[in-house]
C-alpha cells in the first residue's frame, strides 16, 4: 500500500525550481516588453491644474505618455466597487489615472511607456504637473472632526456606519455587578510582500486577444475586470498569476489601475508592455491596514463572565473603498473570539482620510478585534484579581455548545456560526507549553536579579475557507501523468505540494506523477481567489472531490476491461488491481488510453483505443456511452454553506529593560487548531510567518504620516520589518479538531499566526510594567514615555491581583 501523504511533512515540489533560480516571477517574464512608469501625486489632496509633457516626449526611447484625458470607454470610468454593502452608503473608488483631483500621495497621474524602465523614469522626472493644494485629512481624529472632507460626496468623512447587536446590550451592562470603560488604538501597517505588484500584457493583434500576467491573488478576478474595462469578450482575455513573491492580502485587490492600464496600452500600441512596481510605489500607492480607534464598554459578574459587551470603533479606510467594508466587518464579528458574551453590540464607522487606501492584510481586521477583546479580558481579570486564564475560561464557548451561532452576519454575508473547536483543551495545552502556573516563581527569580519580565496571553477564532466556491480539474494523460488545476492562485503556500498530496492519496498514484497548476485562467476559468485562509479548504476539497470522481471513472473502465466489479478494485502506485489479486491489474495510464476511443493512434499505447484494435464490442452502444465523456478526467466544485472556524491561543514572556525600556520577547508559544493538517511542515511554516508579521505589527511596523499626508517612512530603511534578529524562537503545538463541514475535515491556517500577537505582547508588557498598555505598536521610547506618565500619576496602576504575579514593588520611576 502506498504511504499516506495526507498529514505527512512532504517536502515541497516547488522548491528545487525556486532554490536554483528557476522561479518565474512577474519581472522575469517579458524581457523584451516596453516598460511603463508612473508620475504619482506628491500631494495628499490637490487639484491638477496642468500637465506639461513637452520635455519628456523629447527623450529618446519614450514611446507614449498618457493622462486621464487619453483614457477611453470604461477605462475612463471609476474602478469597480468590488464588494458593495448596504451600510457602505458613501463608497468611493479611484480612476486609473487621476481625474482633476488627487486624493492621496502616490496616486497615478501620468503613465509613461518607454523602451526600458530607466528611460521611462527619466521621462517621469521631466513631466511638470501643476497642482492647487487642498485641505488634507490625516488620522482618525481629523477625519472624525471633519473640518475638511476627503470626498464632497461623503459628509463627515464617513464611508460606512454599521451596527450589529445580539440581545439588549445596554440593559445587560447596566444590570451587571461590575463595569469597565476602555479605549484602545492600533496603528497602520501593510502586507509588504517582498515582490511588489507587477503586470505584463501581450496584445495579439491577429487574434485580437490579450494575455495578461499579474502578480495577483486572483487571476480570474483580474481577467473579468480587465475584459469589462477594455470592452473585450472574456474569451479573448487570459490572465495568469506566475510565481508570486508574497501577497498577504494586498494582491487580492483588483483590478489595480495598472492592471487595466498596461493591457490597455499594449492594445493601443500593439506591443508588449510591462510594469513592475518599485518599493516606494508599493508604500504609497498599494494598500495598508490595521488603523482603528476603539471604545469598549463591558459589564461582568464576579467570575469575570461578560454579561454585556458594547464596542464602538472608528476604522481608517484611507482615500478609497474598493474592497468595501470587509475589514471592519471582520473586526466587529471576529472580535468575539472563543467567547460568548451575554449580549453584544458593535458599532463602527469606516472613515475616509487622504492616505493610501486600506484593504485586507493578513489577519484582515482580526488583529484589531482580538486586541480589543483580549485587552478587555485582561482588564476584567485585573479588576477582579483573578487569573487571566480563569476569566477567559469562564467565557469560553464549550465543546457541547458547537455548532455555536453568534447571531451575527460574517464577512461572507452568512451566519457567524462556529462549526467546531475545543477552547478549554487549547488553553490547557498553552498553559502547559508556556509554564503558566510556574511563571510567578520565574518572575520572582528574575526580579531578584533586577530584571523585569511579564507573561501575556491572547486567544482568537478565525473564520477560514469562506465561499462562494472553488473548483478542481484532474486529467490523467495516457502517460500516467496526472494534471491537476484549480483557479485560485499561489503566493508561497505550497499549493503544488499539498494539492498533489491530496490527489496522490485519493487516486492512489505517486506524488511524482502529479502536477498542479494554479491561477491560470487558460486551465481553469472559474475561481474566486486566495485570501481568508481559504485555499486548502476550498480548492483542497474541490480537488479531492474531483479526484474521487476521476477514480470512480477509472475503476469503472478498468472493471469492464478486467471483467470485475469496480467495487473489487483498488489503485496502488498508479496500477488498478483486483483487491487481493495483484496479478489481475491494469495501469492507470492504460485506463486513460481506453477512456478515449480513437480513430487515429498517435503512439503505440494509443493503438489499443483505435476502432479496429479488437476486443469485444457491443455494437448496440456508441463508443462514448450516454452520460460519459471521452478522457480520464473530472471536474468538481466545492461550495460550503459557511466558513469553517479555526482557532488558536498564544502566550509570550517578555523582558523590559528597566533603564532603556527595550522590549525583548524571551519566549513565544503557539497552540493552533486548524483541523486536520494536510502537511504539518507547511502549516507550521505558515504559523511562523504569521507570528513574525505579528511581532512586526506589535513592536516595529507603523506607517508614519505627517499632517500634510506625506508618508515619512516609505522605504525599508525606515519602515521597520523584522529581521531574524527581531523574531524570537517560536514554540508550537497543535490540536486537530476536524471540521465537520468539508470532506477533508480541514480548516484554514494562512493568517492565524499574526492575529493575536499585538494582544499577546501588550498583555505581557502590561504584566511586566504594572500599568495598562492600550495602544500598539509600542516602541522602547513609547514605553519609556508611558513609564514617565505612569510615574507622574497620569496612568493608573494595575491592581495586580493575578496569581501569575508576585507582590513586586511598583516599577521604579525613570
Amino acid at each position: 500500500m502506498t504511504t499516506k501523504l495526507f498529514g505527512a511533512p512532504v517536502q515541497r515540489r516547488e522548491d528545487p525550481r525556486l532554490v536554483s533560480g528557476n522561479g518565474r516571477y512577474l519581472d522575469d517574464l517579458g524581457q523584451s516588453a516596453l516598460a511603463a512608469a508612473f508620475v504619482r501625486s506628491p500631494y495628499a489632496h490637490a487639484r491638477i491644474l496642468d500637465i506639461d509633457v513637452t520635455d519628456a516626449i523629447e527623450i529618446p526611447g519614450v514611446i507614449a505618455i498618457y493622462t486621464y484625458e487619453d483614457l477611453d470607454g470604461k477605462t475612463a470610468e471609476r474602478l469597480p466597487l468590488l464588494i458593495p454593502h448596504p451600510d457602505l452608503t458613501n463608497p468611493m473608488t479611484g480612476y486609473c489615472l487621476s481625474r482633476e483631483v488627487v486624493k492621496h500621495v502616490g496616486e497615478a497621474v501620468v503613465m509613461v511607456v518607454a523602451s526600458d524602465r530607466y528611460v521611462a523614469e527619466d521621462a517621469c522626472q521631466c513631466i511638470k504637473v501643476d497642482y492647487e493644494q487642498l485641505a488634507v485629512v490625516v488620522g482618525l481624529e481629523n477625519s472624525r472632526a471633519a473640518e475638511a472632507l476627503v470626498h464632497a460626496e461623503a459628509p463627515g468623512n464617513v464611508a460606512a456606519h454599521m451596527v450589529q447587536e445580539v440581545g439588549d446590550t445596554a440593559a445587560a451592562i447596566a444590570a451587571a455587578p461590575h463595569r469597565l470603560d476602555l479605549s484602545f488604538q492600533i496603528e497602520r501597517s501593510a502586507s509588504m510582500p517582498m515582490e511588489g505588484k507587477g503586470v505584463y500584457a501581450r496584445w495579439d493583434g491577429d487574434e485580437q486577444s490579450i494575455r495578461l500576467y499579474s502578480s495577483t491573488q486572483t487571476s480570474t478576478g483580474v481577467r473579468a475586470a480587465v475584459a469589462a474595462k477594455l470592452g473585450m469578450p472574456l474569451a479573448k482575455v487570459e490572465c495568469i498569476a506566475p510565481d508570486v513573491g508574497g501577497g498577504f492580502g494586498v494582491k487580492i485587490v483588483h483590478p489595480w489601475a495598472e492592471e487595466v492600464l498596461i493591457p490597455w496600452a499594449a492594445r493601443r500600441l500593439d506591443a508588449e508592455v510591462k510594469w513592475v512596481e518599485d518599493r516606494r510605489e508599493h508604500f504609497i500607492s498599494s494598500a495598508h491596514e490595521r488603523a482603528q480607534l476603539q471604545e469598549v464598554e463591558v459589564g461582568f459578574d464576579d467570575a469575570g463572565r461578560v454579561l454585556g459587551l458594547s464596542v464602538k470603533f472608528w476604522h481608517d479606510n484611507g482615500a478609497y473603498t474598493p474592497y468595501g467594508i470587509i475589514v471592519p466587518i471582520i473586526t466587529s464579528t471576529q472580535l468575539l473570539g472563543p467567547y460568548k458574551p451575554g449580549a453584544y453590540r458593535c458599532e463602527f464607522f469606516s472613515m475616509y482620510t487622504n492616505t493610501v487606501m486600506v484593504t485586507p492584510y493578513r489577519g484582515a481586521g482580526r488583529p484589531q478585534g482580538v486586541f480589543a477583546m483580549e485587552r478587555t479580558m485582561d482588564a476584567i481579570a485585573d479588576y477582579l484579581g483573578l487569573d487571566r486564564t480563569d476569566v477567559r475560561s469562564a467565557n469560553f464557548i464549550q465543546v457541547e455548545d458547537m455548532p455555536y451561532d453568534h447571531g451575527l452576519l460574517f464577512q461572507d454575508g452568512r451566519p457567524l456560526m462556529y462549526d467546531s473547536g475545543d477552547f478549554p483543551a487549547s488553553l490547557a495545552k498553552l498553559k502547559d507549553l508556556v509554564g503558566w502556573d510556574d511563571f510567578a516563581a520565574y518572575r520572582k527569580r528574575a526580579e531578584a536579579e533586577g530584571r523585569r519580565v511579564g507573561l501575556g496571553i491572547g486567544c482568537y477564532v478565525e473564520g477560514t475557507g469562506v465561499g462562494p466556491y472553488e473548483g478542481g480539474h484532474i486529467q490523467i494523460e495516457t502517460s500516467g501523468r496526472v494534471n491537476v488545476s484549480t483557479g485560485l492562485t499561489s503566493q508561497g503556500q505550497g499549493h503544488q505540494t499539498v494539492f498533489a498530496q491530496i490527489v496522490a492519496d485519493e487516486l492512489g498514484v505517486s506524488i511524482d506523477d502529479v502536477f498542479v497548476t494554479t491561477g491560470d485562467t487558460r486551465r481553469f476559468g472559474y475561481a474566486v481567489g486566495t485570501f481568508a485562509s481559504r485555499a486548502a479548504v476550498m480548492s483542497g476539497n474541490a480537488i479531492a472531490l474531483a479526484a474521487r470522481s476521476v477514480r470512480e471513472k477509472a475503476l469503472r473502465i478498468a472493471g469492464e476491461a478486467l471483467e470485475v466489479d469496480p467495487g473489487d478494485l483498488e489503485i496502488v502506485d498508479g496500477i488498478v488491481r483486483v483487491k487481493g489479486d495483484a496479478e489481475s491489474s491494469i495501469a492507470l495510464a492504460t485506463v486513460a488510453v481506453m477512456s478515449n476511443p480513437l480513430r487515429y493512434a498517435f503512439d503505440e499505447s494509443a493503438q489499443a483505443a483505435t476502432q479496429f484494435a479488437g476486443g469485444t464490442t457491443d455494437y448496440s452502444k456508441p463508443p462514448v456511452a450516454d452520460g460519459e465523456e471521452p478522457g480520464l478526467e473530472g471536474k468538481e466544485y466545492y461550495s460550503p454553506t459557511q466558513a469553517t472556524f479555526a482557532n488558536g491561543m498564544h502566550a509570550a514572556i517578555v523582558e523590559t529593560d528597566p533603564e532603556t525600556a527595550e522590549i525583548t520577547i524571551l519566549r513565544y508559544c503557539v497552540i493552533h487548531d486548524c483541523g486536520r493538517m494536510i502537511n504539518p511542515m507547511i502549516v507550521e511554516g505558515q504559523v511562523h510567518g504569521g507570528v513574525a508579521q505579528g511581532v512586526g505589527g506589535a513592536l516595529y511596523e507603523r506607517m508614519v504620516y505627517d499632517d500634510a499626508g506625506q508618508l515619512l517612512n516609505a522605504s525599508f530603511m525606515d519602515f521597520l520589518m523584522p529581521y531574524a534578529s527581531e523574531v524570537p524562537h517560536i514554540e508550537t503545538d497543535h490540536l486537530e479538531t476536524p471540521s465537520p463541514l468539508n470532506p477533508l475535515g480541514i480548516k484554514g491556517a494562512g493568517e492565524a499566526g499574526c492575529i493575536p500577537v499585538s494582544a499577546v505582547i501588550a498583555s505581557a508588557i502590561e504584566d511586566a510594567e504594572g500599568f495598562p498598555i492600550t495602544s500598539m505598536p509600542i516602541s522602547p521610547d513609547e514605553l519609556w514615555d508611558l513609564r514617565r506618565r505612569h510615574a507622574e500619576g497620569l496612568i493608573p496602576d494595575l491592581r495586580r491581583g493575578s496569581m501569575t504575579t508576585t507582590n513586586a514593588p511598583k516599577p521604579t520611576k525613570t
Partner: protein
Amino acid sequence: MTETIRTDAEPLVEITLHVNGVKHTAAAPTRRLLSDFLRHELRLTGTHVGCEHGVCGACTVLVDGTPMRSCLMFAVTAQDYEITTVEGLAEHVEDSGNGNPPGAITIMPTMSPVQQAFIECHGLQCGFCTPGFLTTITAYLRENPDPTETEAREAISGNLCRCTGYQNIVKSVIRAAEIAKERGVGA
C-alpha cells in the same frame, strides 16, 4: 496624450562580466545596475530585486566570494570580479548510481548543501527573497563551517523575508553545515 515613434535610446557600452564561471558580454548603458544587468541583459533572473536600496538583501550575489547587494553596484564596476548568482550555486558531482552501467560515472548537477538544506527544512515559502539568503549563507558557511544557532541567526540578520518568520531559515543554516560535512565538501 502623446505617442512617439522615436526609439533611439541612450549610448551603450560593452560590458563583460564573469558570472558563474562563464564570460558574458552585453551592451548596456553605464548606469545599468548590476542587478538589472544580470536579470535583463544576461537573463539570469534568479537574482531578485526587492527594494532597490540595499536593505532587503534579495539581490545579494557573491563578488569574488563576498556577498554584495547587486542593486547597489553598477554592472560596469563589476567587470573585474568573479560573480556568483543563485544559478551558480549547484554543484557538479560525480554520480555512479541510478541506472548508470557499472563503472560508468556521469557528472550531475546537484543542489549545494545550502540549497538542499532549504528544501529539507522548508526554508522558503514564496521564494522571492531566497536567492539572497542562499548566496549569503553560502559565503558565511565557507568562513564559519560549524555555526551555533545564535550565530546562524546573526548570519542571516541582514536579509528580509516576509514569509517564513526565519525559523526554518535558521534551521537551514545549521542543516547546510551538516550536509557539507556529510559530503566532505564546503558549503
